[in-house]
């Protein structure tokens, strides 16, 4: 298969398959989780301003007092690469075209030079976060194959995308095809690994906030 045929495949059948598996997986997993139900709380609730499930969904993104000092890489590295990923994925013009073709929505893009810079910063942050994972005792203790696998599957799309745009390493057609392929791999594994936190984080923060709001504690 020549590189242009490979590119046509990942843009065609490959994408069709990947998005389908992604949708199938997300829907199945969400139903699976919510099927277990939850008992209502019969105790008398306490009201407190600023305490609710929804508040926590947003507020939990802020570090609690003293925690950044205890684990700066987790917070700073984590913010940088999450925000970096969001910027690169959602504010790069070719990506916005893709999203427009899928859901019909579009918005202005950032200049490509800024995206390039953000991509590099994201890659660096991800490497730092990886190194932290296998040097810090708690993270190393907790980490399994899945942690390193999901890191790789998230890192490769950013790396291959940057290499493609910059015309580095391999000819553009091949690099672009690899970039799209790595994105497809990411889509396919997302619902079945810890990457699913992209969806469940809203639920977990909400439940936590809700339970504590019942007691009048804003968390």
């Amino acid at each position, binding site marked *: 298969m020549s590189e242009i045929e490979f590119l*046509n495949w990942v*843009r065609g*059948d490959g994408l069709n398959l990947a998005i389908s598996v992604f949708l199938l997986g997300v829907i199945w997993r969400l139903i699976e989780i919510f099927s277990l139900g939850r008992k209502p709380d019969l105790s008398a609730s306490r009201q407190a301003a600023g305490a609710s499930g929804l508040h926590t969904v947003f507020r939990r993104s802020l570090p609690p007092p003293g925690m950044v000092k205890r684990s700066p890489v987790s917070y700073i590295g984590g913010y940088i690469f999450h925000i970096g990923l969001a910027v690169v994925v959602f504010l790069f013009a070719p990506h916005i075209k*893709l999203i427009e073709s899928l859901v019909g929505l579009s918005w202005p893009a950032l200049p490509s030079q800024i*995206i390039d810079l953000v991509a590099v910063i994201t890659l660096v942050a991800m490497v730092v976060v990886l190194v932290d994972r296998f040097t810090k005792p708690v993270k190393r203790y907790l980490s399994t194959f899945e942690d390193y696998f999901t890191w790789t599957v998230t890192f490769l799309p950013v790396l291959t995308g940057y290499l493609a745009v910059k015309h580095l390493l391999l000819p553009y057609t091949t690099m*672009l095809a690899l970039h799209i392929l790595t994105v497809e791999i990411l889509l396919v594994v997302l619902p079945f690994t810890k990457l699913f936190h992209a969806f469940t984080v809203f639920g977990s923060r909400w439940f936590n906030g809700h339970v504590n709001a019942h007691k009048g504690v804003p968390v």
Partner: protein
Amino acid sequence: MNRRPTVAEQLAKRGVSRRAFLKFCAAAASLMALPPSMAPAIAEALGKRTRPSVIWLSFQECTGCTESLTRSHTPTIESLIFDMISLDYHHTLQAASGTAAEHAREQAMAEPGYLVLVDGSIPTKDDGIYSIIAGMTNLQMLKETLENAAAVVTIGTCAAFGGIPKADPNPTGAKSVQALMDEGLVPRKPVINVPGCPPIPTVITGVLAHYLTFGEIPELDHLGRPTMYFGDSIHDRCYRRPFYDQGKFAKTFDDEGARKGWCLFELGCKGPTTYNACATAKWNNGTSFPIESGHGCIGCSEPDFWDAGSFYSALSMPTKPLDLAAGAAVAGVVIGAGVAFANRSKKSSAKAAHKATGLADLEK
């Protein structure tokens, strides 16, 4: 048999001065990215050359490639050079027809070492019935003609890669010349692919001039295309590249960005994945090329460019509708519902089986 007149002799007979001829050779050297010092070598080689025999086979084609070639058929040196090749068989250009035309081909085939040019793809389905010339299928004619050929030059994407007849669903089983050789259906000969839909006129003549001059196949890329013309992507030579790098894209064909000459990526330009000389040699004797005229590159010198999605879809967009998505969503609901049912019944069984824990249950 008469010795065929050399190119130099033919030119002199036509009234082309030596000076004009040398000017052409200098231009040809430059186009082939050769140093100016090569010009005399080209002149000598061309001058001494006898006109080699060329058989042009046209199969499932639209004749666009011939049209392109003849666009260099203005009173220019290129067209005269082409006359300097003994074009012994060409459906559109030859005077003869019927059995006389086929006879000319057979005569040319009698002296081994001729060059075969092919345009159009070759149908193979249903015994190749979709294209018959003089009672022979294209496949039979190609097989027979390649027997004593020195080399093959495919003119146009159809012959090089299958082109438009090969586009999904490929009803005629169209194949490229190289594919037929790889499958052992025709004799294996050196192939130079000159794709394009059509190729640039001076690219066609330039490849032939190279072959005439050096008597050998030029450097080819992994798809058999001469790197001197197909070595760079349109994108890498495009004058609008700075706008791509900055992310300044035209969004419609007549918006402000379009009028300012911004990059056409969002309007479907396939420049980044297309290898051809359009951005440098350009069309109409160097007048312009699609991007300069405000339309994105359609990628016509690449395999399967007709199946690479809409010409107006950007490279980041899907080439096919995502028709599996709806079904997959439904399947997700079904699987989820199945697991949900199993989960709920397991949980309620566990609840039903609950025996109130007493103190005795705390120790084994």
